[in-house]
């Protein structure tokens, strides 16, 4: 759960049921892997509504919740917390490659 929900922009996120992939609710009420397509709530009330919508669409996902994001000057959304940043962008180190004989 995001800790600071006051005054932040909010998106709804979950893990996809079939494969656990991180997804966001878009304006059409569908789940997308792309954060830049996420529906953005611009205040707390809008956030509550967004979460309700996400829960209504939760058939194909697990446990939707709100994530606080910031919007850059270029309009690019980025999660505020490190945890959510990692959720979106993946491991912060290079994992062993599948065919690695040795670690790179």
């Amino acid at each position: 759960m995001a800790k600071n929900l006051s005054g932040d922009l909010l998106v709804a996120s979950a893990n996809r049921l079939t494969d656990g992939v991180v997804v966001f609710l878009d304006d059409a009420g569908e789940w997308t892997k792309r954060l830049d397509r996420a529906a953005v709530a611009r205040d707390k009330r809008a956030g509550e509504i967004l979460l309700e919508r996400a829960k209504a669409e939760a058939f194909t996902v697990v446990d939707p919740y709100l994530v606080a994001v910031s919007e850059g000057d270029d309009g690019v959304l980025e999660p505020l917390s490190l945890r959510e940043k990692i959720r979106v962008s993946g491991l912060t180190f290079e994992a062993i490659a599948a065919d690695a004989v040795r670690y790179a």
Partner: protein
Amino acid sequence: MRCVMPDTHFYRPNFYQYDDYDRTLVTERVEQFRDQVRRRLSGELTEEQFKPLRLTNGLYLQLHAYMLRIAIPYGTLSSRQLRKLADIARKYDRGYGHFTTRQNLQLNWIKLEEAPDALAALAEVDMHAMQTSGNVIRNVTADHFAGAAIDEIEDPRIWCEIVRQWSTLHPEFSFLPRKFKIAVTGSPNDRAAVRVHDIGLRLWRNEQGEVGFEVIVGGGLGRTPMIGKTLREFLPKDELLAYLEATLRVYNRYGRRDNLYKARIKILVHEVGAEKMREEVEAEYADIKGGALKLPAETIEAIARQFAPPALPHRPAVVGAVEALKLEDRDFALWLKSNVSPHRLAGYRIVTASLKPAGAPPGDASSVQMEGVADIADAYSQGEIRVSHEQNLVLPHVAVEDLPAVWLALGRLGFAEANVGKITDIIACPGLDYCALANARSIPVAQSISNHFAALARQHDIGDLKIKISGCINACGHHHVGHIGILGVDKNGVELYQISLGGDVDFGKTALGTILGPAVAADKVVEAVDALVATYLDARSAGERFVDTYRRIGAQPFKDRVYAVV
């Protein structure tokens, strides 16, 4: 890339082999789970109803994907099984896996819809992911040198297998207040950390020459680390299951269910006292013992036989070529010192394959590397591999003569770094990179420490030093029992690392570390560790390990030095 190996014999594995009963049960569980997944995907089952069902098949939902925790009972694998794990990692995951502190294997990118197929593939080699998660009795761990160590009284894995069967799909104990972890040691030098488990079992021989169990209860790490108390000094072996049933029944009935963080048996023992706990268990045991759970001698023997040590051909204890190489090649000499341990037979050694190459995520292996280790096991270690709870792999029966070849073969895989037990043999949980429970990352911290101290000669000079890193209070990295423990915390969205000193779980000595001072920033951890090492090197007496010096001089000198630089 396959190594050129001498004639490979196909060994009958020297540990418990499934019969048709075991196989049927695993297969039926897979089919039950397949149906449960179908009903979840169709919406018939809610997530709340489904969660315990998937957890008891080892399936966690992590940050990016589902993680499958595959059981490796008593950390013992045949080469065939290890190859299958490599195959499954390749087919159902991203081609690598992580060996854990409970001797299991974790695959981090599993899809729920493919999980039943992955489990079916595991079943083909008599493996499964049953009860590696959830509020059930978990994988029973043992000493990773079992069956090969010179100080062994009896192979603990016999008892791990007996407990494994008794605890699998136990109808009464499938909805415990919380998870339940059991460990068994067959040696006075406890390499299974039995005193920090919910139940620890220590085999020992009494004055009459009988072998029985000391039963230890209520140990554990995590939020409230505790060292277990002795419930029973000496328990006859054939009454083990009756005693466990009594203990689990008391826990199931009286363990707390109101608070997730107070639900382990250690809290129950703490709250009612060891004396009262003993009374309750002994009363229940009095009614159960001698009944259907008493193990017939024949049953014990039939299982024990399967763990009979392999008939290893006599091999020379001293080999000219090995002695020569030791003098010629410094890396080989260091590797012999740190990665090779005595075996009960003079002509053999136990080899640890270090899964901690400099800068690598600790405990990880690619599919190719797993297959490489399987090949080496076939050629040089009776087709058998062990998983240590320090996230390394072990080849338990290597002839002295074969040490150079094994060293070279492991080296080609990157698993011959001479750092076992040394500062870069770090134990780290997956941390915030993978885990939904974490507060901070642990792998990058491990990598930076590992890179900083990579120089082997220096590592050997520093000597035995166990660094253990956890990304949250759940302590899956066992930081409480690290000589240096590092706990990642989150303060206002920033990762900070709390350092503790003086923890230990080896050689019968169990101690919990003491926090040094305020948590340090991520980019200061290496400097802090450097300061700790420098303090030790300056103060040590001859033969003292880091943790010994700490015990002698206390925390202050270390604290002063660390906080002067962070």
